[in-house]
C-alpha cells in the first residue's frame, strides 16, 4: 500500500489525531502566552527581574523534552495532563523573552506622552505598551508553536494525544507492512499542520498588528 492509499484508508483516525495534535499545541501556546505576558509585564521594568526570568525560561528550554516528560509521568500520570504541562513550560521561553524585549523596546517618549495626556498606569500598559509590543509577543508565540508541534510528537510516549501515536506505532511495528507509511503519515502530518499554523499566524499578524508599526 502506498502512502496516499494508506492516508485515504485511515483518514478518519488520522484527521482526528491531527485535530487533537493542533488542539493541544494551540491550547498550550495560549496558556503559555497568558502566563508569559503576565511574567513579562511583572518583570520588564527591573533589569534583574528580566534577567532572572529569561535565565529560568532558557534553562527550561535546555532540558531535554523526553527527560522532562519522564519526570512529569510519576507526578501527573499519563495522558493529556503531563503533555500540556510540558508543552506550556517549553512555550514559556520564547513568549516571555519576546514580551520583555518588546515591552523594553517601547520608546519612553511614547509612554511619557501617554501619561502626559492623562492615561493611568494600566491604560498606558494595555493601550500603548502591550499594543506596541504585540508584534514581538506574536512572534514569540509563533516560534513556540513551531517548537511544540515537534515536542507534542514525543509526548505521545506518555500517551499524549495527537499524531505522535502514529510515529510510535510505526516504530513498534517495524518490519510490518504499513510501519513506514504510519510513521511517514504522522511525521508529514505534523509538517503540514505546522505550515498551516504558520499561515494562521501570518493572518493574525495581518489582522491585529496596527498598520502604523507593521514592518
Amino acid at each position, binding site marked *: 500500500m502506498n502512502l496516499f492509499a494508506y492516508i485515504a484508508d485511515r483518514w478518519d483516525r488520522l484527521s482526528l489525531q491531527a485535530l487533537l495534535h493542533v488542539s493541544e499545541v494551540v491550547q498550550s501556546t495560549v496558556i503559555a502566552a497568558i502566563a508569559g505576558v503576565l511574567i513579562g509585564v511583572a518583570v520588564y521594568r527591573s533589569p534583574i527581574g528580566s534577567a532572572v526570568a529569561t*535565565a529560568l525560561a532558557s534553562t527550561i*528550554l535546555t532540558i*531535554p*523534552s523526553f*527527560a522532562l516528560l519522564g*519526570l512529569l509521568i510519576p507526578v501527573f500520570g499519563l495522558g493529556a495532563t503531563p503533555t500540556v504541562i510540558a508543552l506550556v513550560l517549553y512555550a514559556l521561553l520564547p513568549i516571555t523573552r519576546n514580551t520583555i524585549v518588546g515591552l523594553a523596546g517601547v520608546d519612553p517618549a511614547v509612554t511619557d506622552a501617554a501619561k502626559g495626556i492623562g492615561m493611568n498606569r494600566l491604560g498606558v500598559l494595555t493601550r500603548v505598551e502591550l499594543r506596541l509590543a504585540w508584534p514581538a509577543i506574536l512572534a514569540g508565540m509563533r516560534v513556540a508553536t513551531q517548537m511544540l508541534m515537534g515536542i507534542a510528537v514525543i509526548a505521545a510516549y506518555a500517551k499524549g494525544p495527537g499524531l505522535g501515536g502514529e510515529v510510535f506505532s510505526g516504530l513498534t511495528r*517495524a518490519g510490518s507492512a504499513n510501519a*513506514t507509511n504510519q510513521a511517514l503519515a504522522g*511525521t508529514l502530518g505534523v509538517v503540514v499542520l*505546522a505550515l498551516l499554523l504558520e499561515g494562521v499566524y501570518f493572518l493574525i499578524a495581518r489582522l491585529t498588528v496596527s498598520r502604523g508599526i507593521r514592518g
Partner: protein
Amino acid sequence: MTTTTDVTGFSTESGSRRADRMRLFAQPAAVVVIVGLVLAWAFSRDNDEIEAQSIQAGVLLTKTWEHLVITAVVAAMVVGIAVPLGMLLTRTWARPAAPAFIGIANIGQAAPVLGVLVLFFLWTEWEGLWAAALPIAFYSLLPVLRNTITGIESVDPALVDAGRGIGMSSSGVLLRIELPLAIPLILAGLRTSLVLAVGTATLAFFVNGGGLGELIDTGYKLNRVPVLVVGAVLAVGLALLVDWIGAVLEEYLGPKGLS
C-alpha cells in the same frame, strides 16, 4: 587617550546578556547540587532487585558516556558539515544556491525529530550510534549553517575590500578575516545546536543508540520511578552542562578585539 575603552570592563548590559552571565555561574553549580542530591537519594534508598540493576555506577556511567558520544559525534558532524557549507554558500558564485540549502536545513529542523529518527531507522534498518547520530545531526544542522552564513555576510564589506586591496587572496580573506569575524555568531549557533543534540540524544534508545533515554524508558516500562528519575535528572544535568560548555566556548573562544 580618551577613546580607549577597557576590554575587561563590566558594563550595563541588556537583560539577556545579563541572564547569560547569570547562567554562566549558576548553571554548573545547580547541576552539581541537583544531580548529587538525586544520586545520593537513589543510591541510599532501599532499591529492589530491578532497580539495583540500573542504579549502579557502571550502568549510569555507560549510559552517560553513550549519551556524550552521540552528542560529540553530532557536534562534530554539524561543525564539519555546516561551517564549510556555510563558507561555500557565501562565495559569490554559490550564493544563488544558499536559499535551497537553508530551506533543506529548515525542513530538517521543522520536521518532528522523533519522526525523522524513526523514519531513518525504518528506511535504513540501521541501529545504534549512527542510526541516531545522522538524523540528529540533520536536525541540529540549521543553527550553525544559518549563523555561519549570516556571520560571514555581516562582515563589513570595507574589511573585505581592505583585505583584497592590500593583496590578500580571496581564500586568505575568507580564512583570516571573514571566518574569524563570524566566529562569535557561529559559536552562538553551535551552542544552540549542542542543546538540540544533547536533548534529542535522549531519543537515541528508540533506535538502540543507547544514552540516558534508555534509563527513563526502563523506569517507565518496568514502573520503577527511581530509575526513571535518575535517568531524567542525569539527562537534564548533562544538557545543562553541555549548554554551559557552549556558553563558555562563546565567552572565551571568540576572536579578541571585538566588543
